[in-house]
């Protein structure tokens, strides 16, 4: 806990830089990654991430120093080459894109690992820390490294800000973009370059193995919460930044631990939570709505039944009905019925008596309305859609629960307040 306060207070300038850097990197790759996701290029992002490793190693071998500037250039070059190769293979052979991606990814990464092993065996003192590029080490993000990577991150954000409209257009409809004369190829090139750069910024804090996740996952999580592209981008940036912050903290309390897996784990938890919790699209939200609807149907069906029992008993609506009376008319599942009855009492639509249950005034109104809607809908189906009277009951059983007061009014007016339904039952209007 003390650690956390110490960390969050940002008193130590070192911590301040690491935190700032991690947030910047994670946010910028999330922003660029939003377009990678929308263009359905998630796998390409993964290939690039793995393909920068040989570039990093090569830069180190050629220069003999661990200068972030050279390493970035090396990473950028092999990252790009991998993309060009994927493109070339897909266009000029029978190999499909996904296969080409898998091929390039493993070949480049394999070569990278090989070179890394050679470097580590060579005994060059400067190489210590090069293996951080595999799984990331946020705490090593200081001095010159921090400067270079943060500068790239800023460039990325500004580029997306300036070209937002253009990127959105080519992600949605490339042909249209081309037809209005936008330089689509150039724009694609810029976006690809930004993607490679976004990968490059993350190599130190997150590592090449998991960098693709930082590109795609924040955007995927954000998509669950919004249908607006601008909101989606900000949200992705925020979620990315948060996981970056957590990564920096882990790196601070447990310096031996690689940061990449932690950061990715945090953002993945966020994504999975979104999958379950997000409104409209989340699984949990859908389950809850389903349940709510089922409960509503059950309760309204009980009230409707009470009303119909009253109708049959010579309009004595406020007599006690026993559970037997109810199930004789309609075979409810007993446990559900009991639950429904109790809920209705809580809501003030029914009251319990010594021998059973009885309507309140509000309960009678509601039961009456549902009965009316059921019969009106049956009439509507037979009159307007010419459906046989013996086919309309099932349909009305559902529709009666979803008709809004406005629709109810229109239904009444269109049918001109009829008095009988197709089965010659009275339609009960409120007076």
């Amino acid at each position: 806990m003390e650690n956390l306060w110490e960390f969050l207070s940002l008193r130590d300038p070192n911590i301040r830089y690491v935190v700032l850097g991690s947030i910047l990197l994670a946010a910028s790759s999330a922003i660029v990654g939003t377009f990678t996701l929308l263009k359905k290029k998630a796998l390409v992002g993964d290939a690039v991430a793995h393909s920068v490793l040989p570039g990093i190693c090569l830069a180190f071998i050629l220069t003999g120093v661990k200068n972030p500037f050279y390493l970035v250039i090396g990473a950028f070059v092999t990252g790009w080459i991998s993309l060009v190769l994927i493109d070339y293979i897909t266009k000029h052979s029978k190999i499909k894109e996904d296969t080409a991606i898998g091929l390039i990814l493993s070949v480049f990464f394999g070569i990278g690992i090989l070179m890394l092993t050679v470097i580590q065996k060579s005994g060059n003192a400067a190489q210590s820390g090069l293996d951080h590029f595999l799984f990331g080490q946020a705490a090593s993000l200081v001095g010159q490294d921090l400067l270079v990577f943060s500068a790239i991150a800023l460039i990325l954000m500004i580029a997306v800000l300036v070209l937002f409209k253009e990127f959105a257009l080519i992600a949605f409809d490339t042909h249209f973009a081309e037809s209005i004369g936008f330089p689509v190829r150039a724009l694609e090139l810029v976006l690809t370059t930004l993607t490679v750069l976004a990968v490059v910024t993350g190599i130190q804090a997150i590592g090449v193995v998991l960098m693709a996740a930082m590109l795609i996952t924040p955007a995927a999580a954000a998509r669950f919460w919004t249908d607006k592209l601008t909101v989606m981008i900000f949200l992705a940036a925020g979620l990315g930044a948060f996981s970056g912050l957590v990564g920096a903290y882990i790196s601070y309390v447990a310096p031996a631990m690689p940061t990449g897996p932690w950061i990715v784990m945090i953002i993945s938890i966020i994504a999975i939570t979104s999958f379950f919790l997000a409104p409209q699209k989340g699984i949990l939200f859908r389950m809850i709505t389903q349940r709510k609807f089922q409960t509503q149907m059950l309760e309204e069906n009980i009230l409707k039944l009470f009303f119909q029992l009253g109708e049959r008993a010579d309009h004595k609506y406020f007599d006690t009905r026993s559970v037997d009376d109810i199930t004789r008319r309609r075979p409810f599942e007993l446990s559900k019925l009991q639950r429904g009855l109790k809920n209705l009492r809580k809501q003030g639509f029914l009251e319990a008596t010594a021998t059973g249950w009885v309507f309140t005034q509000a309960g009678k109104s509601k039961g009456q309305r549902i009965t009316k809607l059921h019969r009106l809908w049956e009439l509507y189906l037979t009159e307007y859609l010419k459906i046989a009277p013996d086919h309309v009951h099932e349909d009305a059983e559902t529709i009666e629960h979803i008709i809004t007061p406005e629709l109810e009014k229109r239904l009444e007016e269109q049918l001109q307040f009829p008095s009988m339904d197709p089965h010659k039952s009275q339609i009960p209007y409120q007076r």
Partner: protein
Amino acid sequence: MIQNVNNPVLELHDLTVTYNKKPVLWDIDLTLPSGAIIGVIGPNGAGKSTMIKSIMGLVPLSSGYVKIFDQDLPTVRHKVSYVPQKESVDWDFPASVMDVVLMGRYGKLGLFKRPRKADKEVARECLRRVDMEAFANRQISQLSGGQQQRVFLARALAQEADLYFMDEPFAGVDAATEKAIINLMKTMSEQGKTVVVVHHDLQSAMEYFDWVVLLNLRLVASGPVNDVMTSTLLQETYGGKLTLLAEVGELLTKKEFPSRENQ
């Protein structure tokens, strides 16, 4: 029956288009009159979409040239509008109806600039013309097929062009929407605009179009609707006579032969 016109809005000269060496359009020579509603008709795989894409510069030409208003496309681009088949985009994209219609203004706006208030008003007016004003803020994934088509039309209207190419705007729309769309096209043509429409239904083609282009890998016919929609010409378009052409095309792919000597 290939009728040519003076001062055409569109001229195709010896147009050949190939995919992987396989020609899908052979030596098309075509001129189209201005201010007409023009139907492009032919069986599946006849190359209708390809012809429109090649006119819009979206697929490379193997030979020939395209002139629009007697100019090359880049100089007259702002006067031309292209409506792709609606299946060509992902309607799950995070955008509202308004966002999509505003894209029609991007050509006039150019790079880097954001839509202005005036653009939004034009977009809203275009939505009104296709009867979709109430849907302006609706997420596009929540639209029906017919509504998606209307949104695409509104986007095209927002371009304020003089020549429109529409790839199957009637596909998957109900009768009411079809009627609304054709009325819109009639209004456009009264304003002197030319509308070129890829279409599949021969019955309605008779009443919708002033001019018809029959296509099946090659140009079969082009002329006023009543001269072109004859049983002989339709038979020639839809009948099996072109299998030879298709087979030669297949051969060119297999042998990786260039379709032109100088390639």
